[in-house]
């Protein structure tokens, strides 16, 4: 009985050892590169093939060892690049790249790991951005053909990656920010301020002009109203005068001679006032009875 135990122990431990050194797990989002004596042999759960994660087998170290690579869509956040657009305008472009390890073997040979990939992609993107964007003018980068340009950058850099056999696929390149450098921003602010100031003056001037017009029209209208009234008034007065003259004429013409006398008498009464001093001749008709009771 006791003799079998050490054997069992031995067997069990061998089994355990085997289990540990000859198996490995590949998670759903991982690819596993199996190296045989340092040379790339195969990739488990490789991108581009049907997903096949889980428990895998290999020869123990030092025969075979496993390098785990990511199977996912990975990001490289690029450092901002200052470049010159075709219209000599400086731009600071901050972009990010999404890539995927599509060939684990090539990737390991060329880049080893994600850090290596980051550095390599940074330099590729740097030159690609300058290349592609340096050929177009600023408005196109910012607005007109932004999407198109990003697509072009993605294609160009992907081609470069293939040419250099990096084993990566560049899925997408997006420009997060394409801005003017600080000094140029100040220039834009000044321009915006000037534009607005002009607009403000224009609005105020238009307002004043309209106000002037209203006032002028109002005054003209007032003057016209008064003048027309004046005109009418003159006519009315004229009518009055005419009527008056007619009335007088009609009355006085009945006896012009008497009228002359009558009117003179009135005039004398009114016209010669208290301040007048008279020097009368005794021949004055009024005094005709003065000398003689029978008159002259």
């Amino acid at each position, binding site marked *: *009985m006791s003799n079998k135990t050490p054997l069992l122990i031995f067997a*069990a*431990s061998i089994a355990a050892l085997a289990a540990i050194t000859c198996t490995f*797990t*590949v998670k759903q*989002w*991982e690819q596993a590169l199996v190296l045989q004596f340092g040379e790339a042999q195969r990739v488990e759960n490789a991108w581009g093939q049907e997903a096949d*994660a*889980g428990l895998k087998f290999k020869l123990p170290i030092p025969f075979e060892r496993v390098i785990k690579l990511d199977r996912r*869509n*990975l*990001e490289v956040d690029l450092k901002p690049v200052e470049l010159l657009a075709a219209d000599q305008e400086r731009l600071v472009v901050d972009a990010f790249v*999404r890539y995927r390890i599509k060939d684990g073997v090539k990737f390991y040979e060329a880049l080893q790991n994600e850090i290596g990939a980051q550095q390599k992609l940074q330099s590729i993107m740097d030159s690609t951005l300058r290349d592609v964007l340096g050929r177009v003018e600023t*408005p196109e980068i*910012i607005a007109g053909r932004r999407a198109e340009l990003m697509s072009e950058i993605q294609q160009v850099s992907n081609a470069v990656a293939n040419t250099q056999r990096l084993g990566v696929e560049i899925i*997408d390149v*997006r420009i*997060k920010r*394409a*801005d003017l450098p600080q000094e140029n*921003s100040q220039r*834009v*602010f000044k321009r*915006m301020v000037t534009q*607005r100031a002009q*607009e403000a003056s224009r*609005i*105020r001037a*238009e*307002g*004043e002009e*309209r*106000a002037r017009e*209203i*006032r002028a029209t109002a005054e003209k209208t007032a003057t016209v*109203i*008064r003048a*027309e*009234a004046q005109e009418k*008034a003159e*006519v*009315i007065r004229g009518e*009055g005068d005419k*009527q*008056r003259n007619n*009335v*007088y004429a009609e*009355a*006085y013409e*009945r006896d012009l001679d*008497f009228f002359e006398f009558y009117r003179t008498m009135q005039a004398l009464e009114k016209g*010669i006032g*208290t*301040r007048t*001093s*008279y*020097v*009368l*001749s005794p021949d004055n008709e*009024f005094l005709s009875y003065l000398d003689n009771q029978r008159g002259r």
Partner: protein
Amino acid sequence: MSDNKSPWGSSSGGNGSGGGKKPWGQGGGRPDRNKPRAGETSPDLDNVIRGFKNQFGGGGGGRKNGGGGNGPLAKFGPFGIFIVAAAIWLFSTAIYTVDQQEEALVLRFGEYSRTSPPGLNFKMPYPVETVIKRKTREVKKIDIGGTARTSLMLTGDENIVDINFTVLWRINDLNHYIFNVDETEVAVRAVAESAMREIVGKSELEKIITTDRLSITIDVRDLMQKTLDLYEAGVEVVEVQLQKADPPEAGNVIDAFRDVVNAAQDAETIVNEATAYQNNIVPKARGEAAQIIQDAEAYKGRVVAEASGEAQRFKLVLEEYQAAPEATRKRMYLETMEKVYSNADKIILDGKSGSGVVPYLPLDKLNARPKGAQ
């Protein structure tokens, strides 16, 4: 049943270490189960452990009999304790709960096996099967644009606008979310910034800060969704909200914008003043006009009435005169003269007599006399 069935046997000194699974260390084989600090246990736990020890044959692995305990598992000794402990622990990894808000992915040796519904679930213990849980119902929020670098954007008409916005998103496909994209939250933020700037870059400043705010958020949402779907990220962009879309504060720009509004108000004010002036003087003029005409009418009326009156008077006098012309005439003359001379100074000079007299009229004295004197 003897203790010797245990592969380790009590006589081996109960080192209990092997297989690399759990280093128990030397000495005594006192199992300090699942406690990080050996030898420091609470009094209650001490009792529990002592109880276990009594059950399983004591801690002294060095004893030949593997412990004189009476428990059913006493024969297994310290290794038995280890086995049981491991078993309990493994069993605990085989149970897991999923919240109502969550989804759980079960991986078998790392390979996706199935998705678990909410509630209590079972799986194969670690390391065969593992679980990844995420809150998939929960709407997550990202705020973008607190700093000048992230909030100032170039517009389509070469202006700069200051934008703060919020993105609401959630996981709508957990498999994709976990397996397809690395650091999905970071990706969402980066895509958001890029999408907003792309849309803003196509729009005019005036519209951005006024009428197009809503359509911009819709366009950004759509663009983000399209991009994230391209990555198969398993993310749904629920909503994009513009917190702020203004002219930049720097360089007095926003003041200049406010001034335009002020200008419009100023213009309106002076036009209103002019209109008020108009509404004042035109009616006033009409009033004056009416007055002028009224005066004229009054004049006409008066003048005609006076004339009528005088004419009528004349006619009456004429009738009287025509009835007795000489008498009337004489009478009128005398009456008039009476009136005329009564109020005046008179000097009667006979021109014929006293030719030697030089007429001397002290006119100045005469004129200086008060009225009514004779």
